[in-house]
């Protein structure tokens, strides 16, 4: 790759534009300038630095068959294509700043990358929040029997890393009498329910005042209008401040490249939810954003064989979650912190 400093900005644009117009790219990558944009029109348009750099390096990568920078020598066409796609992914913006067209472009790339990596056709959506919906969750500690069916469903649904046995949900076995997370264990592996014990499940509580969002130095995690705190996996720098800030230990870090056997991949995915995550980023429960925004129940709620989990719209007075909040004795964990979790516990 030639040294960028030797080129003027105009050279950059001319070279990138010429390569675009010449159709030198082997794949359908709609991220760069459209064919209608000739170099001359590009000169007249304000082009931001990020876009110019992307065009320069993208063009250079194609020009050298992506050999030196992105892919090993002797790489197959698919490896070269994946390298170029990853290269273009590297220059995309934060999800909240993307236009609809840019979202569509990155989804095309991510779906293609998933296909190249696993051989599976996946569908990644960017379904926006529904109006007048605020998700809430209630957990019946009288009903939970510690079967961990929710954990199993969560792993399958959210494509969690099998290599490290990542689990969003923890089920704590408590001795009858009081809730004490310091004494309780989540590692039980005996017949449940055990005599004299009850079970309390934790996961991300989707706080209304989330400390994890506050500490993120790069704006990679935020709260959506329907109350779900999400993560832009490509924008996350892996500093793990959010994990330190979360009082509920709800976030998980990918120390290694997450692995899911291709046959077990859930192909119905959401950009902010269960799609494949890169190494070195944080992830967490999103109330199954890929399901809940379509009107479906989160996988844990659907899988629970005891009916201990209640999920719904807090803004709908006729919803089950509202009935629980209005008719049952409910509490939240560490309420004194002011995090305002949207996850309540109740008893029969």
């Amino acid at each position: 790759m030639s040294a960028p400093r030797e080129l003027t900005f105009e050279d950059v644009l001319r070279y990138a534009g010429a390569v675009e117009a010449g159709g030198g790219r082997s794949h359908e990558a709609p991220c760069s300038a459209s064919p209608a944009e000739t170099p001359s029109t590009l000169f007249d348009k304000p082009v931001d630095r990020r876009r110019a750099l992307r065009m320069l390096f993208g063009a250079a990568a194609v020009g050298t068959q992506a050999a030196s920078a992105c892919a090993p020598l002797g790489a197959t066409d698919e490896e070269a294509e994946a390298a170029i796609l990853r290269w273009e992914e590297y220059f995309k913006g934060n999800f909240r700043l993307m236009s609809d067209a840019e979202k569509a472009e990155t989804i095309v790339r991510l779906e293609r990358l998933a296909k190249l990596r696993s051989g599976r056709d996946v569908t990644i959506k960017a379904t926006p929040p529904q109006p007048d919906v605020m998700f809430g969750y209630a957990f019946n500690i009288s009903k939970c029997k510690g079967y961990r069916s929710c954990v199993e469903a969560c792993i399958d649904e959210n494509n969690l890393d099998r290599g490290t046995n990542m689990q969003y949900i923890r089920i704590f076995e408590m001795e009858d009498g009081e809730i004490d997370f310091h004494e309780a264990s989540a590692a039980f592996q005996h017949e449940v329910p055990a005599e004299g014990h009850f079970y309390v499940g934790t996961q991300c509580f989707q706080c209304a005042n989330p400390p994890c969002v506050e500490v993120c130095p790069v704006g990679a995690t935020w709260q959506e209008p329907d109350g779900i705190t999400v993560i832009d996996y490509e924008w996350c720098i892996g500093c793990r401040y959010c994990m330190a800030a979360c009082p509920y230990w709800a976030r998980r870090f990918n120390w290694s490249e997450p692995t899911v056997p291709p046959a077990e991949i859930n192909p119905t995915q959401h950009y902010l939810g269960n799609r494949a995550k890169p190494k070195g980023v944080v992830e967490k429960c999103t109330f199954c954003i890929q399901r809940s925004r379509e009107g479906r129940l989160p996988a844990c709620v659907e899988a629970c064989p005891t009916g201990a989990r209640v999920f719904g719209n807090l803004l709908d007075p006729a919803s089950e979650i509202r009935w629980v909040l209005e008719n049952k004795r409910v509490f939240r964990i560490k309420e004194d912190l002011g995090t305002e979790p949207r996850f309540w516990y109740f008893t029969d």
Partner: protein
Amino acid sequence: MSARRACRRLAGALALALAACGRGEGDGSVQLSASFGQSGHGPPELALLASAPVTGRSGPEGHAFDVRLRTPRVTSYPCASCHERPVTAGSRADAEHADVRSVHPSEVAERCETCHAPADPARLTLQTGETASLDEAYRLCAQCHFSQTDAWAGGAHGKRLVGWQGRRVVMSCTECHDPHAPVLSQQIPFRGPTIPRATLEDRR
């Protein structure tokens, strides 16, 4: 009679089917309790609950819902495929249905015909003298289990099907609870976490 032998073989399947709790029902197809309208209780919403003889009151306002039909998943059904004549009064389940674990009837010292209509084994007997189909088993349960029925109608007990949005369809009592042994059983849980919970468990 061969039909009777077949019935005995199927009795175990019946007990299992009654205890099946709806896990892994991924077909998405839900048969709704449309037949309730034919039994003279009006629409399949809370009209049935309101007429349940013991509770005698409707659920909370706005909580109209449907109950999924139970009988399509009862294995040895209809009962008439084996029971050709009325069930003998006083007969015991361990004689007639060897696989039925009669825990609940033993606890409350009841006999088959306390709940099952002798003249028609496919119907349940209510305290009012009415009968109800197996799809309406919750009417029978509601005669004693008031608080559970209340929570079920409101949404704190039982399971909702399909999704959180749209028409509310719930499971009937007997989809999760074996009516003859309603307490859920012990089992080995799914595998636990391997990553230690760094903040709390390490302190020990």
